[in-house]
């Protein structure tokens, strides 16, 4: 395991190289790309998907999937805006958003763990539920938020760094620590690797799976706070398609969809690939219609290249 050949490096950091190549290419293509202010913009964009993708990584590591995160973002945002409107208390609004995330996560976790329904189906259903409740609650209209403290979260700076970036940096440090250093994190990998073996080792698989979905919901709530605060309003259609970006970041980051392998560090790189791409296409004035096409193509290409690195590295 120890020898570190060039191939090994490629294999471990393949996606990071791809990201680097993208950054270099875009810097040549557009002078406005390689500027501090643009990087701050990218990071702020990445923050939202980044928080979602961190939770998604945990879920996918257990061999599951969470399609409901986009809906959670919308519902949590609207409830937070409602709470803010009613009380004017920014902290309460944040707690409400996080709480909504936790509740949806618990519902997902409960059905996945204790009724043994496939996660795909459970979270597809809660996605529809969350979206439905959002429309019922907002009657389809956006809710404005206006409180200096709450607005700080999405738009503020601390020591020159955007607050969302700080928050997400924290998220990655915490989730990275949880996955690598704690008992719970170890179980996330083990359950994804072989659920039955875990159960027969005396592990409470159900409780741990439940916790994983709760983490994912919680982080979706957090993501929703950042988004709502940045937009200064809660949109009933917010977060549409976010689950796909989050899943894409996880996959680009090298986490296996069948579970048990991967990690949050790769996911961060994956989220950046998606963020840099979107930003670059904007700067290059590519029409939004083509942006999705480009995104799909890049995801496919990146995964293929990564796979090529891997197979040259697998010294059969």
């Amino acid at each position, binding site marked *: *395991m*120890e*020898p570190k050949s060039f191939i090994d490096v490629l294999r471990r950091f393949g996606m990071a190289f791809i990201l680097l190549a993208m950054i270099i290419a875009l810097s040549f293509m557009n002078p406005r790309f390689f500027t501090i202010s643009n990087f701050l913009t990218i990071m702020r964009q990445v923050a939202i998907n980044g928080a979602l993708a961190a939770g998604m990584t945990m879920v996918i590591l257990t061999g599951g999937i969470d399609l409901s995160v986009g809906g959670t973002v919308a519902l949590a945002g609207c409830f937070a805006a409602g709470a803010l409107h009613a009380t004017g208390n920014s902290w309460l609004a944040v707690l409400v958003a996080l709480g909504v995330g936790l509740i949806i996560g618990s519902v997902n976790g409960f059905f996945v763990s204790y009724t043994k329904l496939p996660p795909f189906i459970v979270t597809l259903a809660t996605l529809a539920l969350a979206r439905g409740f959002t429309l019922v609650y907002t009657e389809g209209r956006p809710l404005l938020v206006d409180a200096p403290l709450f607005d700080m979260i999405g738009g503020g700076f601390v020591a020159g760094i955007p607050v969302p970036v700080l928050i997400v940096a924290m998220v990655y440090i915490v989730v990275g620590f949880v996955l690598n*250093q*704690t*008992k*719970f994190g*170890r*179980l996330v*990998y*083990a359950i994804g*690797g*072989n659920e*039955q*073996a*875990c*159960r*027969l*080792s*005396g*592990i*409470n698989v159900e409780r741990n799976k439940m916790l994983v979905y709760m983490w994912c919901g919680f982080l979706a709530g957090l993501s929703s706070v950042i988004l709502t605060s940045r937009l200064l309003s809660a949109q009933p259609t917010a977060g549409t398609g976010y689950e796909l970006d989050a899943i894409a970041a996880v996959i680009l980051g090298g986490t296996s969809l069948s579970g*048990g*392998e991967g990690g949050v560090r790769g996911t961060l790189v994956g989220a950046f690939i998606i963020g840099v791409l979107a930003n670059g296409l904007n700067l290059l004035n590519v029409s939004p219609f083509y942006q999705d096409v480009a995104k799909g193509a890049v995801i496919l290409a990146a995964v293929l290249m990564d796979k090529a690195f891997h197979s040259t590295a697998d010294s*059969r």
Partner: protein
Amino acid sequence: MGDTKDAPLLAMQGISKSFPGVKALDRVDFQLWPGEVHALVGENGAGKSTLIKILAGVYSMDSGQTLIDGKPVDISSPRQASKYGISVVHQEFTLVPQMTVAENIMLSDMPSRPGLRLLVDKKAMVSGARDILDDLGVDISVSSPVRSLTVAEQQIVEVAKALSRKTRILVMDEPTAALSNVEVERLFKVIQTLVSKGMAVVYISHKLDEVFRISDRLTVLRDGRVISSSPISRLTRNEVVKQMVGRELTGMYDKPEVSIGRPVLEARDLLLDPIGQGISFKVHEGEVLGIAGLMGAGQIKLARALFGIERVYGGEVILRGKPMRISSPAKAVETGIGLVTENRKEEGLVQLLSVSKNITLTVLDAVSHMGVLSSRAEADIVSDKIRDLDIKTPSPKQIVRNLSGGNQQKVVLAKWLAVDPDVMIMCEPTRGIDVGAKAEIYRLIGEMARNGKAVLLISSEIPEIVGMSDKVVVMHSGRVVGELTGAGCTQEAVLRLATGGSAVGA
């Protein structure tokens, strides 16, 4: 017998293969003549499976060459291997559980409708599969999903699958590890038929009795090198063992004399079937209770019921005098029961995780503080166990999947020895384990007894049960049919009861 031909059917010459940190094969020469059964033996991790995987095109060799009929060939994929008529029954199963027996058998060679290449000819598939199974003389429904078969039946399907192709060289990597005696006999008959038709068979096994019965020639590997290769008639069992482990082995079943203490676990009229008959037994501190029976006689089900996996329809489990309802494995472990499961791949191990992480999976609480893992504590336990069980791995960080089969089995044992439960239930603990390591495991079982633990030893290897147990409970088709102790506990007595005969003088 085949020496009359001038070129062997297969010659592998100077084969070397390294994995990171391991030299799995070191200039190995191996020859195979038509019509012979050639046994390949050696300790766990000696390189047997690796050699076979190179022959099968699963791994590529670092150096050396393979000749078939005297001509050099390049086997770089399993497809090519089968083109040269090489079929392998691998140590770990490669069946698709959801598909039917027929589909699995014919998987590599699906018959298509005449003229319609893309459509599977279901009729031809079913009849083809049935023909092969008939040749093997087994009665397995070709339309049932493989998932629903017993391990032994799956093994047969695995063999049948290998025979669905045109085969000149059949390799079997521990084919009998999960077979009962009857099934082994059947397999041997099949092998003899195949060999008489000129096929050559490479037979890998840790069961030396079988090896001596079936093979014509034997090659011993140790640490990736060929130690000897000669006709079986010139060898004795002890010589082979000595060549395998590099030393003399004495006293396989060296069980220490332990005074038996208070009862630990008792089953009273335990019902594993709504209409079955209750099962009762008692196991004490320091006692090894053997549960014998043919494969599928209900021993495994009993073990799983005691561990909270299998449903119980009635009766009581009493642990240290208190009635207990064991509703889940988590509960079982909490109350001090451990279970070494029967199959390591599906239930024993997380293949993607390292040796170290697998061993500590059962003791995460002990190696963490407020939920945070201590790598020091983990490393301590893991290095202890790797040493105690002599697990051959380049490092504790090695992914379990990369270990040899027997060493994987040792990891399963290690993770339960790390827990050190009051009651250790062991299902087929020595399956796929070499003679030297077997002796080591028997020593560990003795050790557990000496430390006042109760051991439930479940095994289809009768010598092992008789050798290790203080008392043997024999099961036959779901019922306890007898209990044997002391001088009355002989292999013959166990076998007679297990096959449905009655106990004599008991």
